[in-house]
């Protein structure tokens, strides 16, 4: 079955892509929504314009749509993107990296149903520590691109998701109820390399940090 992936460039949508490929599905295209609203209800925002570089490294075509990111217009824009992918790449289904968000998942289910597409959410309800362990086990190279909750600060930007990171998440989870995989929007990530999915490794060329106190985002120039 030919599939398109709703792709943000972060760990979840990349892990979902990897799982689909590993299970024998053909990834025809990635679909990215660039939201002008940094507080988007539906989409992960930092560095999403860098999905183009990731798509090139994977050798998979990318469909990009810009949205102003207002609550209901962003759904219209998402529909538009999915329809373009269906027409251009003849996809028969959509893959998402939804883990916990019923808001996100049920809206995508409705769009897929309207367009007669299968909808796959291979990370659905996944334990967040298991999700982080899966990244390590399968040698995903992932860096933190944004932090949006206490007690995170600027020093977390650019950190790799490694064993030490997971151990610290265990402590932050116990102490501050931080979701270990950032499912509550506590942090966002960017994938630099995945064996068997990326044809080459991305490198961070330049970092720019924006923010204050416990809310920081990085803009990365990858190559």
């Amino acid at each position, binding site marked *: 079955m030919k599939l398109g992936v709703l792709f943000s460039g972060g760990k979840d949508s990349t892990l979902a892509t990897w799982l689909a490929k590993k299970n024998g599905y053909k990834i025809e295209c990635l679909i990215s929504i660039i939201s002008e609203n940094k507080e988007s209800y539906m989409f992960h925002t930092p560095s999403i314009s860098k999905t183009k570089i990731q798509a090139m490294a994977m050798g998979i075509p990318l469909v990009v749509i810009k949205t102003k990111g207002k609550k209901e217009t962003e759904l219209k824009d998402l529909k538009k993107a999915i329809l373009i992918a269906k027409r251009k790449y003849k996809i028969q289904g959509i893959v998402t990296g939804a883990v916990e968000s019923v808001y996100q998942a049920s809206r995508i*289910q*409705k769009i*897929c149903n309207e367009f007669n*597409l299968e909808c*796959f959410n291979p990370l*659905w*309800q*996944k334990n967040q520590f298991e999700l982080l362990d899966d990244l390590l086990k399968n040698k995903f190279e992932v860096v933190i691109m944004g932090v949006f909750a206490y007690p995170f600060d600027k020093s977390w930007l650019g950190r790799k998701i490694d064993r030490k990171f997971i151990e610290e998440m265990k402590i932050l989870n116990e102490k501050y109820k931080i979701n270990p995989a950032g499912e509550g929007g506590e942090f966002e990530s960017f994938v630099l390399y995945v064996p068997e999915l990326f044809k080459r490794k991305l490198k961070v060329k330049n970092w720019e940090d924006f923010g204050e106190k416990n809310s920081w985002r990085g803009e990365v120039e990858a190559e």
Partner: protein
Amino acid sequence: MILLINICKEKLHFYEFVKPVEDILSKNKIEFSTRHYKDLTNQNPTKADKFIICGTSLKDNDFLENIEKFSWIKNCKKPVLGICGGSHVIGLIFGGKIRRKKEIGLKEINIEKEFLGVKGKKQVYHLNQFRVLPEVWKHKTKPIYATLFHPEVRNKEIIEDFCRI
């Protein structure tokens, strides 16, 4: 030992519809094994003590063309729980009629009679294209249960309670 029955035709759906149920059983240290419905024989399929028939996606309805594969349920004396597509299977085996009823997302329902430890108003997660049985259903005399909604998403305690029967 509980046998989880996978009704998904698409391999990738396993992670969305079967694995979350496996995870609830693992967390509760309950022994289980998982098999695809097409791999089960028509008699009482295994030495399992209980069966859970998991759901599948809105479009993945191949199992409805193979309902005879589930005829063992009719004479099964052991506890069975059907989730969503699994609920359709149980309903059809006991003579119910299938009709279109599309429901996607969260909804509040009222469970009038106690059902696997829950009663009263509950928020449930639906993902169904059809309906055979009501929201919750129990066989009159046998320990056979069904939920139209997905208790592995909201109301995990229903699955835990079923495991304790």
